[in-house]
């Protein structure tokens, strides 16, 4: 069963709401390249994890202004999609979900501004519908992406940096992935009137879940096929990204020597050899165990939210991310 089905959230409704963000913008001609690129990106699919988390978070609050929640959920995905357009340019990835990435279709300059349009449109919408100042500040600051950018700066700075520490890796992963996921659970909860303590615990849950998700994503780079990944396996190492399995592998002096030789101009054959050595070193299993530990910590946080019917949704999320359910 798909995650959205297990959570009883129809993806078609989410997608409709996301598409409406651009469709209902009076400043965007329907037949424009911009509208086409955005609706095409939305139609290309995706897990919709962020909107699902906003909706799950809202189930922990007493109020249920469905319209508001769904709009927030759509806004979260819109911001995420904007970041994907810019990420593909940053990473020079020609494909997204097996299709040409936005910049491959439109060229770099239009794609940069299509992504920026999406961020600006969300700010405009939040400013329009948030009559309550406190809510407005909360929703907007949750959508602000400065931490995401800092994560990108950290990634650029630490490319081919084999002295990266575990703490630096975790901080970068938090900034790039888990904080936005955590914020999605929290804005859903807050929008539905949940108290600070509950939304804080959901934030912590989302942070651990997101971090675990990022580590699993790192592992996929070693275990996935090009078809699954939409890019050649081992792309992270080739582009200088020091992920958790690599960090663990660097603890082995002999393996570290080989890894440290990988640079921007290393041959593909040599990188393939290093990837194979990391795969057989037991480091993938260590990284997997680390990811599972985070999920276990998240599960304990979910255990503390008994009394909420939506507690089961947290277990569903844990199941999806690879942990045994309660």
């Amino acid at each position: 069963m798909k995650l959205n089905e297990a959570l009883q959230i129809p993806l078609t409704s989410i997608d409709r709401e996301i598409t409406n963000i651009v469709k209902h913008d009076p400043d965007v001609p329907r037949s424009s390249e911009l509208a086409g690129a955005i609706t095409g990106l939305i139609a290309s699919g995706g897990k919709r994890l962020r909107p699902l988390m906003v909706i799950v978070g809202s189930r922990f609050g007493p109020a249920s202004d469905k319209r508001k929640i769904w709009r927030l959920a759509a806004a979260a995905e819109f911001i995420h999609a904007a970041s994907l357009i810019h990420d593909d340019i940053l990473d020079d990835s020609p494909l997204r979900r097996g299709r040409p990435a936005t910049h491959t279709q439109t060229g770099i300059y239009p794609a940069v501004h299509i992504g920026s349009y999406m961020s600006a449109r969300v700010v405009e919408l939040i400013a329009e519908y948030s009559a309550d100042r406190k809510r407005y500040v909360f929703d907007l600051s949750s959508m602000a992406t400065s931490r995401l950018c800092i994560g990108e700066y950290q990634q650029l700075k630490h490319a081919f940096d084999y002295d990266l520490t575990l703490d630096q890796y975790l901080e970068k992963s938090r900034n790039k992935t888990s904080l936005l996921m955590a914020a999605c659970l929290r804005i859903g909860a807050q929008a539905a009137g949940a108290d600070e303590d509950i939304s804080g615990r959901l934030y912590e849950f989302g942070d651990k879940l997101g971090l675990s998700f990022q580590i699993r994503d790192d592992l996929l780079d070693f275990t996935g096929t090009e078809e699954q990944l939409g890019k050649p396996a081992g792309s992270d190492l080739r582009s200088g990204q020091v992920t958790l399995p690599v960090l663990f592998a660097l603890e082995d002096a002999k393996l570290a020597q080989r890894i440290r030789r990988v640079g921007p101009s290393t041959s593909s054959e040599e990188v393939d050899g290093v990837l194979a050595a990391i795969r057989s070193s037991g480091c993938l299993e260590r990284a997997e165990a680390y990811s599972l530990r985070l999920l276990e910590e998240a599960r304990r946080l979910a255990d503390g939210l008994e009394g909420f019917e939506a507690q089961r949704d947290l277990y569903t999320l844990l199941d999806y991310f690879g942990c045994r359910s309660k």
Partner: protein
Amino acid sequence: MNTSLIQNASKLLQVQLAPESGIAPDTASSLCLLSDAAQMLEDSTLPPLRSARILALYYAVRLAMQCHQACKAPDSQLARRLLDGDYLYSVYLDLALKWEEFDLIAALAPFIKKIQIKRAEGAPQDELLLQGLSRFIRTACKMLNDSARQQTLAAEAI
């Protein structure tokens, strides 16, 4: 024109930028990008600190636009320019929220959005930002004057 407002705005923005970003706006660029907006603020009745903050926020958006404007070809600086533009725009939002300039965010949002649309269409209208700021300053001054008038009337009534 008095350049101290521009210098103050520039300093306000500079101290808020994360060291990781390495962004260091220079004086020449600030004078070039901010002189029109600074003149508008100097001619207004807004208090000096608020004017400097508004100018710092405007500066962040102008710099973001400048960075994204240069994102045209896949050269070695592309990633850096794109990221700097994204970061500066997010700093604008963070700072505006921190300084409680909610009305500024709401007022500039449709203008910033239209600038992106026009650029994506290949028919830039970057002057929209200054137009948006001008409209915001007029409204903010009117609100300030109305509030001052009401306070005077209340004091007279007492």
